[in-house]
């Protein structure tokens, strides 16, 4: 032990930094520390990677494309003609047919259990009992009448053919996956940088680093570098998941998509840095983060289109970074838009990037 301390002469010879291995450069060490700290916080890993996937699954299942609904109708079974009517109706697969008594049918109609009640008449005809103000009753009237007439031998005078068109890209899940990606880029940029920096400041670790020859630029750069690494993971998991399980399209160029994500991640990183530039406590910075992010969760078109808001608000909404990110992501993924055609959005995102970085570096408090 005393040898080690007295070993001044050997250690004073020291090892110059340029002779040190790549892994012992301070920027590499700082970046590795960012990774290590992140992966050793299972809750942070969940909120960054698990939560968006859960949200995507939930929304995807809730708003999945459903089989067309079948209409429930009933036939009054008191007349001998009822059996023929029922067999005509059963040929139409969009109907669910049951037979009821006079009073049972009336009650089912009244309580909206069926859309329409067919009453065979003694003379050979039928009467349709329904409420014309109910949409499905109107539809049922058309389907039922068509089936009964066809069953009785009516021929179509015009030959028709159906072609059914259901396109990937126009479903809710297609809308929401780019929105979730944008939201995730914002969240991990702002939380990822903000919390780590404010935590280090609160624990006086920033101050301790200031007492070493550590480069301040490298310190901040290490956050961005680790963000970029996690960015790749986030984007690949979420988009891969969307494509695999829901067939969400990726119509635009992947390189362009990568570039949009990169610029967005840097812009949100800058915003995170700015939010964290002065705060001393996690509590203080959390409030500030929510104050900044909440309006964007609502207005920037994550879960529903930002065009739903009145046009007076649109100039502000369109200037929000997340709106620009979401619009650019959707244009790329769903419409296959080129980089040039999302130039406006990219300009807004880049402006946020530059302004927030410059302001953050000016305001940043190291102690």
């Amino acid at each position: 032990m005393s040898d080690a301390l007295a070993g001044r002469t050997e250690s004073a010879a020291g090892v110059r930094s340029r002779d040190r291995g790549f892994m012992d450069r301070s920027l590499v060490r700082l970046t590795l520390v960012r990774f290590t700290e992140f992966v050793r916080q299972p809750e942070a890993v969940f909120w960054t990677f698990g939560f968006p996937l859960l949200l995507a699954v939930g929304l995807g299942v809730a708003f999945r494309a459903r089989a067309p609904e079948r209409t429930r109708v009933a036939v009054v079974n008191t007349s001998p003609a009822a059996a023929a009517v029922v067999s005509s109706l059963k040929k139409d697969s969009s109907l669910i047919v049951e037979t009821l008594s006079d009073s049972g049918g009336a009650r089912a109609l009244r309580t909206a259990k069926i859309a329409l009640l067919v009453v065979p008449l003694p003379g050979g005809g039928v009467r349709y009992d329904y409420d014309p103000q109910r949409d499905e009753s109107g539809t049922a009237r058309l389907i039922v009448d068509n089936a009964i007439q066809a069953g009785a031998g009516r021929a179509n005078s015009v030959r028709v053919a159906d072609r059914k068109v259901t396109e990937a890209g126009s479903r809710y899940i297609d809308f929401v996956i780019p929105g979730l990606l944008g939201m995730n880029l914002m969240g991990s940029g702002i939380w990822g940088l903000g919390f780590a920096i404010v935590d280090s400041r609160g624990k006086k670790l920033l101050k301790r680093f200031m007492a070493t020859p550590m480069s301040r630029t490298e310190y901040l750069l290490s956050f961005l570098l680790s963000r970029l690494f996690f960015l790749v993971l986030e984007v690949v998991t979420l988009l891969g998941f969307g494509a695999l399980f829901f067939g969400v399209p990726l119509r635009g160029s992947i390189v362009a998509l990568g570039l949009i994500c990169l610029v967005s991640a840097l812009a949100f990183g800058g915003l995170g840095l700015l939010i964290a530039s002065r705060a001393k406590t996690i509590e203080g910075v959390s409030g500030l983060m929510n104050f900044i992010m909440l309006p964007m969760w609502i207005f920037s078109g994550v879960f529903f289109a930002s065009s739903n808001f009145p046009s007076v608000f649109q100039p502000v909404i369109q200037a929000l970074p997340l709106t620009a990110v979401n619009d650019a992501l959707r244009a790329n993924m769903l419409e296959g838009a080129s980089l040039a055609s999302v130039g406006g959005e990219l300009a807004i995102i880049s402006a946020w990037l530059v302004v927030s970085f410059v302001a953050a570096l000016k305001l940043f408090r190291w102690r």
Partner: protein
Amino acid sequence: MTPSHALVARGLCKAYDEVVAVDGLNLEIATGECFGLLGPNGAGKTTTIEICEGLLDRDSGDLEVLGLSWENDGAQLRERLGIQLQDTQLSEKLTVSETLRLFRSFYDRGRDIADVIDVVQLGEKEDARVGTLSGGQKQRLAVACALVGDPDLLFLDEPTTGLDPQSRRQLWTLVEEFKSSGRTILLTTHYMDEAERLCDRVAIVDHGHLIALGKPQDLIDSIGAAHPPPPPKASSATLEDVFVALTGRKLRDE
């Protein structure tokens, strides 16, 4: 080549808003000396030491550290100082060796990490996360972070506060060994026995002023007659008696 003084401060002043923390303080610390800065809470010890560490700007006064000035040679100075702050919490998620490797990477030249781990006797805890260490182990790690750049001047701000007797003695050994290699230490402490044992000279400060300076034994001798120690305790005065005689018995709660 080596200046005879590791640190020279003249007329150091620092005020926070209304409060004057350091008020015209003079300090001269010889190379190879272990110098103790003593004083009640709020006396200006930490402010003084942080000005010397380049973490705080002084309002006025001259300061030369290792013959260099913070204004012109900041980068060079940071390479040569080892610093332990009073209340730094190192990242709990990192292990002991990861923490040291990070600190080592900041310095152009420095010591082998295994070597430093050995010095602070954390060999068994090398791969343990900082969050699992005891108070004494954390404090030794903080000192290890200060040693990893192979400093010429070591600042220790209350390094043993809150530690058990074993941990305190381990840190004392560490300080003594560092000193025995001919290098300089500036430490603050509330424990007079610690100052008596470790320090070649001590300065007692209060209200930002220097009120006594000298070898611990000389200070004790100087008050022996004027302030006799309470009879039941010990037969001779201690540095603690000097301290209380000079700074009074009024409580200083921060």
